């Protein structure tokens, strides 16, 4: 039982990462009907940015030499801002011109895939194969609750994810920009008539999605400090699947899907040989999709004549 609960805690942490990435997929998809396959790599870029920022801030011989607490507090917003710049750049440089030309939707998806490849391989090419390690930004504390151990880092990750969920939920349901985002997914052509420029909504969406992915990257790097250029690809594909299982286009779906995937993965790895993780995780997700073809929160597809 304790073992099980301990695994649940681990699953919550992994679920937070998946959820934070899945959000970016879901937001962009909701607005543009575009699977932004580069998003997983944006997450990776976030982790690397966090590495450079925090190392720079902490460097004793550098001009800052901040304390760890201060460095962490500064790293979070800086990572988020810089990562969102990456996301917005992708949209500006690669996706928008293509969509303007009225290219087939899938060509934009392929472009996204290519952007992802450039990010991960470009990273490897520029930084080389030597692995980077994020400096510790937090004094480690371990709490024992009953028989399970929780580190302050895990708590921090999960709380951050939950906080992000509520903030995003608020933005999407309560603010003018959020309503515009939802409106775009209904009718792309009516929105400009309402006096809201489509481009601004799209950029806003990319900012939201990428900054959240950046935060995810930072948190991931804090939990698993050794960075790898391909970490975004594997995690990203899985997060995308999580977003779809939750019902792509829905913020709640991204969270539920992310946590669900994490629970399945962690439990499979805990009770079965860990090489079966992908097999079981994806089979279960396929079964869910079989049962609910548009995901947990997705609205059923209706064809009209």
């Amino acid at each position, binding site marked *: 039982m304790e073992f099980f609960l301990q695994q649940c805690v681990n699953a919550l942490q992994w679920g937070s990462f998946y959820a934070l990435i899945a959000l970016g997929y879901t937001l962009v998809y909701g607005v543009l009907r575009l699977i932004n396959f580069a998003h997983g790599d944006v997450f990776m870029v976030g982790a690397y940015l966090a590495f450079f920022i925090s190392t720079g801030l902490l460097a004793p011989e550098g001009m800052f030499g901040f304390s760890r607490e201060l460095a962490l507090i500064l790293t979070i917003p800086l990572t988020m801002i810089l990562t969102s710049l990456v996301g917005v750049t992708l949209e500006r440089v690669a996706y928008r*011109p293509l969509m303007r030309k009225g290219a087939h939707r899938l060509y934009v998806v392929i472009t996204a895939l290519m952007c992802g490849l*450039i990010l991960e391989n470009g990273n490897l090419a520029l930084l080389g194969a030597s692995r980077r390690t994020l400096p510790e930004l937090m004094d480690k504390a371990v709490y024992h609750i009953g028989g399970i151990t929780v580190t302050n880092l895990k708590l921090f990750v999960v709380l951050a994810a939950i906080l992000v969920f509520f903030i995003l939920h608020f933005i999407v349901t309560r603010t003018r920009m959020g309503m515009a985002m939802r409106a775009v997914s209904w009718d792309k052509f009516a929105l400009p008539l309402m006096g809201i420029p489509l481009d601004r909504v799209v950029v806003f969406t990319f900012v939201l999605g990428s900054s959240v992915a950046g935060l995810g990257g930072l948190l991931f790097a804090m939990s698993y400090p050794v960075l790898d250029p391909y970490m975004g690809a594997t995690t990203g594909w899985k997060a995308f699947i999580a977003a*779809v299982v939750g019902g792509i286009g829905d913020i709640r779906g991204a969270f539920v899907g992310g946590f669900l995937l994490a629970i399945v993965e962690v439990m499979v790895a805990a009770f079965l040989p860990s090489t079966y993780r992908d097999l079981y995780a994806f089979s279960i997700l396929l079964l869910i*999709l079989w049962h609910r073809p548009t995901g947990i929160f997705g609205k059923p597809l209706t*064809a009209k004549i």
Partner: protein
Amino acid sequence: MQRYAINILLCVAAVVLIVLAQTETLDKYVLNIIMLIGINCIFAVSLNLVNGYMGEFSCGHGGFMCVGAYVGSLLSVAFFTDSKLFGAALFAPELAPFLFPLVLFGAMLAAALAGLIVALPSFHTRDDYLAIITIAANYIIISIIENIDAIGGSRGFSGMKKTVNAMSDLIDLPWMLIWTLIGVFVCVVVIRRLMTSTYGKGVSAVCQNEVAAEMMGVNTNHVKIMAFMVSSGLGGLAGVLYAHVYGYVNAQSFNLLKSTEGLVMVYLGGMGSITGVLMAAVAFTLLVELLRFIIPGLNTVFHDLNLLPASYQLDQIWTWVIIPLTLILLMQFRPEGFLGNRELTHVFPRLKRWITLK
């Protein structure tokens, strides 16, 4: 006679290739690239049936290639070689050249059956949901194979070279080149014949207006199953050829990156254009190989010009930066791929005089 000019030309080209390979005028490296081009042609043209003609978004074609590669390899090892796994050879190794089509066929059949996994959910879901089903299928297939220890698990599987050697022992010919050329021919003919028939046009009808297709009497579920199975079956053909050309398979060679290569070739060539996709497959494979030489060259040039710090070397990883970058640029200029949904004969109507594709 004139109408068959191009067909004859292609036959002659194939024979010349085989003769060149036989006389070892082409070195092994070039020969391998030619076979890889052939395999990529099969891989891309088969994917084009689902992603181009049917307009679905299948991202897991590598998975079917994987099934074909493994099943084909196992059959080939069981049939023609003595192995620890299957014991003595099932047939005399002298039969290898004649029974090898059985191996190809078995691999195609197995891959086609795997295609069913994806075809069935496609009744209810379309594009993006189907995309993830195919991605998941790709993961699942690889994961299953990696967990079967008897066939090598994540270490991979080998032993197919013996089959190829058995063929050469009997008659000394560049067998894998021949089989690859036959494979490309079969693949193109099957897709071409399918898509020019009223039966196969149902695939385009599903793409262009599924509701109308169903209402006008097209059994859309049947069409989807057919298209997915043909596509994955031919993908399996690419896999089994790949396995025999290299003599070794590993499930991870068929991961999502492989599937992505397929997508690249299809969308680069133009959705629903066989000739376009063939051109893209050739161009793509050649580009990857050329970069092997270009990058070290660039490295030297840049260092000579002092454009790069001495400590930094341009290495092969730049291939996978340059290729996506090229593609992104190409798509900005030709968002519909090389040929869009048209064939070469539509773009150059004069070609029609020289060609009869039936």
